């Protein structure tokens, strides 16, 4: 029976076996304001008060200015590695603008402005990038610690959203992630489970076209991130991530659906104009022309055009905003500088609710060593404070 078992040549068929593929889906990209600054669809302009339109602008400028200043600070050795959101301001700000303070944000690094909008202090943001654990308390803001391990926060956010659902709360879990994160197992398992549970979660992918040096085209054979929602029986929304009003619409829509029990995967198509982080040299893997191309699609400029169209630009005192942000930044640096020196006990205190005898012993011995051997301090590059 094992012999003569099957056709000698490989199976072949003339049958017309239908397949489903991305060619069958039309993934539209939501847009309100065109790249040239003109409104594509007046109906789609969100119904916001003029002040709010102006706030949006201020936040975008703040994001940009913060990134610039932080990058400079890093170059002067006054900050650790820094990850800029340059080019992604519309995605970062437009999304956060559609949330409420009660929502929980799961950040992964580039969303300074979103976190500040959510209530985090600028000082704490700087402290984070100075490597001070205290900052991850995210004091005063419903923000989880940064997910430095890419994708690892996604299932955690699903759990958080599950809690929100069990509570009957009207808040969502809002997850920031990059295009690279979409290739992780954690993404898949976390989002699939969210879909099954029907929890109020919005998975917001900033597709900035790169994961360090890996272009999106090689990250996956899929054309878009949004279409991945189909794998989870979810809605996928694709939005022009350089169009702040479109991002706002997309996230507002997603948030509402999520609250109704339908989590959503949003893809904001944008571009990381800066280096991956301050330790990266993007000239190794991408062409200047590409960067310039995207500079022409600048989200801040585009939104200025909208404001101009709307007759709101005269209300903007650009100079004043930048000055205000710069002052805030200076104050934040000063506050970070003034942050109390961290005590070594902190390393041991937060491992468990109660330190174990072993942890207490380790601390005691180490304190003793620090006392007895002042030369230890030669090895401790002194940055235990902000």
């Amino acid at each position, binding site marked *: 029976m094992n012999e003569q078992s099957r056709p000698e040549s490989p199976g072949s068929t003339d049958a017309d076996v239908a397949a489903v593929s991305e060619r069958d889906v039309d993934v539209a990209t939501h847009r309100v304001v065109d790249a040239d600054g003109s409104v594509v669809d007046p109906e789609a302009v969100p119904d916001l008060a003029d002040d709010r339109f102006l706030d949006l602008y201020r936040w975008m400028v703040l994001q940009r200015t913060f990134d610039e200043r932080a990058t400079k600070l890093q170059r002067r050795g006054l900050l650790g590695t820094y990850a800029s959101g340059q080019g992604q301001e519309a995605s970062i700000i437009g999304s956060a603008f559609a949330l409420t303070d009660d929502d929980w944000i799961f950040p992964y690094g580039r969303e300074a402005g979103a976190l500040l909008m959510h209530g985090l202090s600028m000082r704490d943001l700087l402290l984070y990038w100075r490597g001070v*654990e*205290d900052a*991850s*308390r*995210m*004091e005063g803001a419903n923000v*989880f*610690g940064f997910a430095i*391990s890419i994708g*690892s*926060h*996604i*299932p*955690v*956010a*699903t*759990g*958080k*959203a*599950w*809690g*929100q659902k*069990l*509570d009957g709360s009207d808040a969502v*879990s809002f997850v920031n992630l990059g295009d690279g994160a979409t290739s992780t*197992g*954690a993404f898949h*398992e*976390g989002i*699939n*489970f969210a879909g*099954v549970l029907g929890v109020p979660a919005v998975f917001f992918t900033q597709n900035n076209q790169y994961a360090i040096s890996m272009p999106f085209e090689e990250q996956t054979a899929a054309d878009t991130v949004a279409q991945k929602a189909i794998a989870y029986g979810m809605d996928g929304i694709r939005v022009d991530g350089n169009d702040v009003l479109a991002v706002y619409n997309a996230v507002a829509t997603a948030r509402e659906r999520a609250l109704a029990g339908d989590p959503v995967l949003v893809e904001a198509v944008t571009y990381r104009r800066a280096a991956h982080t301050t330790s990266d040299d993007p000239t190794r893997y991408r062409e200047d022309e590409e960067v310039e191309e995207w500079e022409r699609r600048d989200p801040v400029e585009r939104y200025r055009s909208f404001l101009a169209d709307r007759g709101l630009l005269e209300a903007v005192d650009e100079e004043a905003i930048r000055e205000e942000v710069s002052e805030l930044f200076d104050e934040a640096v000063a506050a970070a500088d003034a942050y109390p020196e961290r005590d070594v006990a*902190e390393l041991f*205190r*937060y*491992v*468990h*609710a109660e330190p*174990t*005898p*072993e942890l207490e012993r380790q601390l005691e011995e180490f304190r003793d060593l620090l006392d007895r051997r002042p030369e230890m301090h030669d090895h401790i590059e002194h940055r235990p404070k902000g």
Partner: protein
Amino acid sequence: MQATIIEAINDALHEEMASDDRTVVFGEDVAESGGVFRATEGLLEEFGEDRVLDTPLSEIAIVGAAIGLAAHGYRPVAEIQFSGFLPPAFDQLVTNASRIRWRTRGEITAPMTVRTPYGAGVRALEHHSESLEAAYGHIPGLKVAIPSTPADAKGMLTSAIRDPDPVLFMEPKHVYRSFREEVPEGEHTTPLGEAAVRREGRDVTVIAWGAMMHNTLEALAELPDVDAEVIDLRSISPLDRETVVESVRKTGRCVVVHEAAKSGGFAGELIATINDEALAYLEAPVRRVTGFDTPVPLLSMEDYYIPHPPRIEEAIAETVEY
């Protein structure tokens, strides 16, 4: 009441779900079918589908979601069907569960429990028999608890669920049903991080945990002349160094029994602890009786791998006579 380990676990889950409605139980096949070992039997019927859930086949999501749910104020008790399927979720343990309190300086915490049956001896398929407690016990911030008796299974699981921090609760499935003993009814907690002296003695200290506790007692039954002190470690992390050290200082001899592979196994930490604080008292090298440095065999050769009583007996006898 008289109960087996699995019954005691089931009882603890019933008690905790009844006493704290933040307790949520989930995992693969835990709801409708009551768990492949029936640990969660009856919970769905009693507490409803909001609090007792079957999940997709997603270990990363099970552990990850437990972290988020715990951070939100619930008391998740997640089941990983066999400990051999915990490795896919290793990252969630290392990267999030164990350090969320630390990362956020106590602002966000993860009072969660991950239950998982572990160990060999049930004639199961590949990956169903492993013991990786040493790897998990090395993650700072993660508690690793292993009961060996029904009363402890109930008490320690209750404590794990109430613990303000993540606890990996490894259940010796080989002895899930092998015997019954008296288990306190109603609320019953057993502190985590404390070893139990199962038997006092002066000749030698024998340390074991999980199913190996029973192999050890069987081995000692063959050695009526040996006055052994038997420590049920119960907690891999935090480690109760004091009980270990005190005992070895008294007996001067020690044997450690575990079923995980020898090299890099948890016996190493125990021996290091003894070396630290009781070296001068040692009258013989500490002996290890462990699994081999091989994968756990499939069922036909599984029994070669497990440290059965004669192996333990020999090691104890040799240590006493050393």
